[in-house]
């Protein structure tokens, strides 16, 4: 498994060169969106797939990151890189505060609590008056500048976000193969037994929640700098559901699942938007949603463990994995 993931990361690195050859702005912008969502879903994947705690409120952390970056740069003239850091840290701190109580809840109750939080934050974006710009949002967010490089076109931004995603993937790879990764899994499987092995479940769950909020915030900040305009609508409950879908479709508790899920869900959205009007002339958005729903139900019926389990059909079981390494 270790080897396979290294290979996968190297393959990914090669794949990322292809768009540079094609050099299409549409492709870049789709890939930027995929990377930004992937960053959110990497953290959510740790929370849901490993620690086993569901959240229907991650669009809120994503949005808080976006608004933090937007407000700090346009209202307070902070340097963009510092604002990006703040965009990650602020949602992280908030998660650490609310998680302490929220994570005591289980399953459906946790889902409801995070959902409520998401809705509340969305209302605040809408009703924030001067600070958030209300329903029409705020524009004029400057380009992200790191050192002397200004990320002012799609290609540069594409390279930036995928580089960041790659670093995050490496970190996630380390995490899930570590003692901490095993402890997270053990919480998901049996909290009793995990505690009995010495795992401070409450603390570790809180760390996973905070980590996921941090990544969602970072992604939100990147999003704000990329589109240079921000409004409440991309951070609604609907987006939270999309994030959860990406994790589940990709495969809970798998390394490649979140990335795969983000690629599939975003591509599917794009594809349906293009194709449905061709097939059914005059079709409204509801047709897209219906077909989208049918595909998702189909996926869940035929690949209940998520798309990343498809790989099993192409791979022989590796007996070698059992032996100690080195």
């Amino acid at each position, binding site marked *: 498994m*270790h080897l396979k993931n290294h290979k996968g990361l190297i393959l990914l690195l090669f794949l990322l060169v292809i768009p540079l050859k094609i050099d299409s702005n549409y492709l870049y912008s789709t890939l930027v969106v995929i990377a930004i969502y992937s960053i959110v879903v990497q953290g959510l994947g740790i929370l849901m797939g490993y620690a086993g705690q569901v959240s229907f409120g991650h669009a809120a952390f994503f949005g808080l990151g976006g608004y933090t970056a937007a407000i700090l740069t346009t209202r307070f003239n902070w340097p963009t890189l510092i604002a990006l850091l703040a965009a990650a840290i602020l949602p992280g701190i908030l998660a650490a505060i609310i998680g302490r109580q929220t994570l005591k809840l289980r399953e459906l109750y946790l889902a409801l609590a995070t959902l409520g939080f998401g809705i509340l934050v969305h209302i605040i974006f809408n009703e924030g008056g001067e600070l958030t710009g209300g329903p029409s949002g705020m524009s004029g967010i400057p380009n992200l500048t790191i050192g002397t490089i200004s990320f002012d076109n799609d290609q540069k931004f594409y390279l930036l976000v995928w580089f960041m995603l790659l670093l995050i993937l490496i*970190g*996630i790879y*380390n*995490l899930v*193969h*570590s*003692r*901490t*990764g*095993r*402890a997270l*899994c*053990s919480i998901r*499987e*049996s909290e*009793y*037994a*995990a*505690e*009995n*092995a*010495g*795992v*401070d*479940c409450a603390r*570790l769950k809180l*760390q*996973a929640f905070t*980590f996921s909020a941090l990544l969602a915030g970072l992604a939100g900040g990147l999003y704000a700098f990329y589109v240079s305009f921000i409004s409440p609508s991309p951070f609604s409950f609907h987006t939270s559901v999309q994030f959860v879908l990406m994790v589940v479709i990709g495969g809970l*508790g798998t390394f490649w699942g979140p990335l795969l899920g983000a690629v599939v869900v975003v591509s599917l959205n794009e594809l349906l938007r293009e194709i449905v009007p061709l097939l059914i002339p005059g079709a409204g958005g509801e047709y897209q949603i219906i077909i989208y729903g049918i595909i998702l139900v189909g996926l869940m019926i035929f690949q209940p463990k998520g798309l990343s389990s498809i790989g099993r059909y192409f791979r022989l079981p590796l*007996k070698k*994995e*059992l032996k*100690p*390494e*080195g």
Partner: protein
Amino acid sequence: MLLELSGISKHFGGIVAVKDIGFGVKEGSILALIGPNGAGKTTLFNIITGALPPEAGSVTINGREIVGLKPFEIASAGITRTFQNLQLFGSMTVLENVMAGAYLRSKKGFVRSFLSFPGTCREEKKIREESLILLEEIGLAETAGLPATQLPFGKQRLLEIARALASKPALVLLDEPAAGLNPSETEALTDYLKKLKTKGTAMILIEHDMQTVMEAADRIVVLNFGQMIAEGTPAEIQAHPEVIKAYLGEDEKIA
């Protein structure tokens, strides 16, 4: 004494689960906890490991009070357990189960785990090797790469024991470890527990199979309806009139 209980009481609604229980476990010894169904044996394990708060009484390990500590703190004080109704990490492999049990043997936290490569980690290698040795000893080495749920029931019990031992605890609480094992497996387990004892691990053993109990235990505590009705060596317990009375009418035979 390694572990000392005194005056432990707990009831559920109208049921007295355990009442005024007190006994001690010496370092590197096996104490068997026996009694009919519903006698309060598992409840006592839940209290010792911090899963249930007692209404009265104290539990000390090496003289340190542990009532009120959280389960994970009690684990790091050196007490682990197995569960009567198995609590394996089902979708993880056999080896991962044991490695997860060794959580306390290494230190790396969330942030450091994120930042450092697992291949370069000496701690990780050590835990992997130790876990494989443990599996070898308990006879699960060939199944190391299987998901835990794919093991037959008897082997799942053994895996629970291996996982409980992985952190090298001073005291292990075994809740009916031989339930579901066939006679030869039971015998192998008994031998293993005795070997473990000579290496210095103390155990409390809940077990219905009297042959195992009489063979493995240094001391025996008998519970009935939450009360401690006898304590002593296997020979003393076999001759104890109250014990014989409590077990009459049940199919249990005292060897």
